């Protein structure tokens, strides 16, 4: 196959195109450092974000919390989360539970179908989906659906998928960090730019007086809180 053909199919991304690509104001992801990594603009709407991590608990939800807390009037869909999204913690973090919808599908086919429908409809501010192994064509469909609906899609996959190709506009690899409320992010792919190496972000939110789901930082503090219910 010639280079022209590859270019025509959009299989090759040209760094020289970025200058001409129109810049649209994106959606801030709520973390200044991450916004900066994304050209200081956050996520471009109408894109699919692939988040890779090994297992739950590395800070994958805390990374999205500011964005989720900002959405109050439109639906946020969580499709097949691996555990129970814990309502008291989400509420404390300022997420509008009225517009948070959990969807349980029966099969991988249904899951992809739900994601596609939700992204296409354009009536959700964010659609979160937990996917395992999926064919690359499915990811391409999802990216197209996101572009059509103009919303943001977040799909969470295992970090073992990092070497597979993906049609998602953004790919992030998350790794847990020892220091409290931090998270290591490597940008494997982003719109209009080169990949960025691993960088440690702080998940602490400024100007947020409420105690969120962030962890207190004093290790060893063991003030016994005894609560006798009833």
């Amino acid at each position, binding site marked *: 196959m010639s280079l022209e053909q590859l270019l025509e199919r959009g299989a090759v991304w040209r760094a020289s195109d970025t200058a001409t690509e129109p810049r649209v104001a994106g959606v801030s992801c709520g973390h200044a450092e991450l916004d900066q990594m994304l050209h200081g603009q956050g996520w471009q709407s109408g894109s699919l974000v692939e988040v890779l991590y090994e297992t739950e608990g590395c800070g994958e939800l805390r990374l999205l919390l500011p964005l989720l807390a900002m959405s109050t009037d439109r639906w946020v869909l969580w499709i097949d989360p691996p555990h129970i999204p*814990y309502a008291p913690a989400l509420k404390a973090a300022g997420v509008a539970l009225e517009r948070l919808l959990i969807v349980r599908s029966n099969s991988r086919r249904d899951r992809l179908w739900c994601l596609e429908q939700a992204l296409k409809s354009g009536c959700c501010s964010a659609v979160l989906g937990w996917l395992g192994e999926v064919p690359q064509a499915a990811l391409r469909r999802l990216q197209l659906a996101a572009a059509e*609906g103009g919303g943001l899609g977040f799909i969470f996959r295992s970090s073992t998928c990092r070497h597979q190709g993906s049609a998602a506009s953004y790919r992030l690899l998350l790794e847990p960090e020892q220091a409290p409320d931090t998270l290591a992010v490597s940008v494997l792919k982003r719109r209009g730019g080169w990949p960025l190496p691993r960088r440690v972000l702080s998940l602490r939110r400024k100007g947020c007086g409420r105690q969120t789901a962030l962890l207190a930082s004093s290790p060893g503090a063991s003030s016994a809180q005894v609560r006798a219910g009833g």
Partner: protein
Amino acid sequence: MKGLWLYLHFPLLPLEMQCRADVREPAALLDERAARLLLCNTASQAQGLEPGMAVARALSMVPNLRLLQGDVKQAAQQLEGLALWSGRFSARISLQPPCGVLLELASMLRYFRGLDLLWENIQTQLQALELSCVSATGHTPLAARVLALDGGFCAADATDHLRRLQSVPIGRLELEARQRERLQGLGFSRLGELLALPAVELAHRFGPGLTAWLERLTGQRPDPPTYFEIPAVFLRELPLAFEVERTEALLFGLRRLLAQLEGFLRAHYWRALRLQLDLLQAQGQQSLVVGHAQGAQSADTWLELCRLRLERVTLDRPVIGLRLGVTEFRELEAGREDLFSTAVAQDAPTQLLSRLQMRLGEQSLYRVAPCADYRPERSWKEAPLDGALPALPDTPAVRPLWLLASPELLARSTVGSVIKLLQGPERIVSGWWDQQPVRRDYYIGCWPDGRRGWLYCEPGGDWYLHGWFG
């Protein structure tokens, strides 16, 4: 006010209600004694069959002819179904047995912005119905009927209609056979020749019946039709001509029922919230409920929802008929849609939610809400999609974003060595009143790779993982 009427003539109605109009294979409807053909579809006509032919002869000419049994009661039902369907175009509908529907159009022209647009609209909708139909307008109900039987016509003015009526052959008129023969015997071939004669002479020769008929035709004598009253309840049945074993094959029949439903809803200014679809079988039936959160009228919307619902159904036995009923209505309030919305390609959220519910089942979509209970597994609950969530004060203590569905047992030796305890204990003692007591000390722990988990220790010394700080 000038009158304008539309006559829709469905020449093959009893036949086509049982099979598709565009079907390639030849089919024919039998008369009551099952000896002769009553109606032939286009495919069988092309092969030389015609109404009135004996069954044996027809079968010898076309061996693969599909023979269908006619049913008088069913035919009346089908006509009513079409009247419901046409409720979308006019509020005044009259049934014209055996296979015609008359609509009053004059009062609807303004609403549909002229006859041309209305006519175009009707023709597109007729195509979607997949029935062969001849339609004609007329300045009187009878003129519309005569012109429809003569091949169709469309005009707005009475003079155009009168001119067109002149050329209708006497043989096509619905007069008594004896009278028609007499007229033809006298040398009349077109209606125009009859209309040119003085009424007194005609009455003298042919009796007052004919002149009265001609006066009703031209509009000199009032001829108000009996209007069809749209029922307050929608419950329609559609027998299928053959047994259906795959759900996709039901969609064809369903589309017809939904088209009738749309007309019914439009005529009443209602939208339907919930439909019940019964798949009738030789013994028993399977019932499905299809819902739309906000309510919808459009046949297309309902068809899509039904299709999604049907995908999840396995048929126990072959289906021989469909029954569709509306179990919940709502008034259609005007101005519901936002005219000035700038967003493009946006579905109403309810549309998306209904679609997901139909495919996955209603219990697969829920919201989560906090609950007033100290036990972590009971301090949240699934909540339905609409309605307000309970307002509760926030928990002062730190809680993880992920809660495990069932706590995971940890090896005792790992806690404190591999898993470092960062914060705690937080003692939760509760539930002694409902036989599910809880007595736990909760800690936040740090795993070797840096992940944070929520774990607890029971009085016996067992450690469990209960959540992740995701």
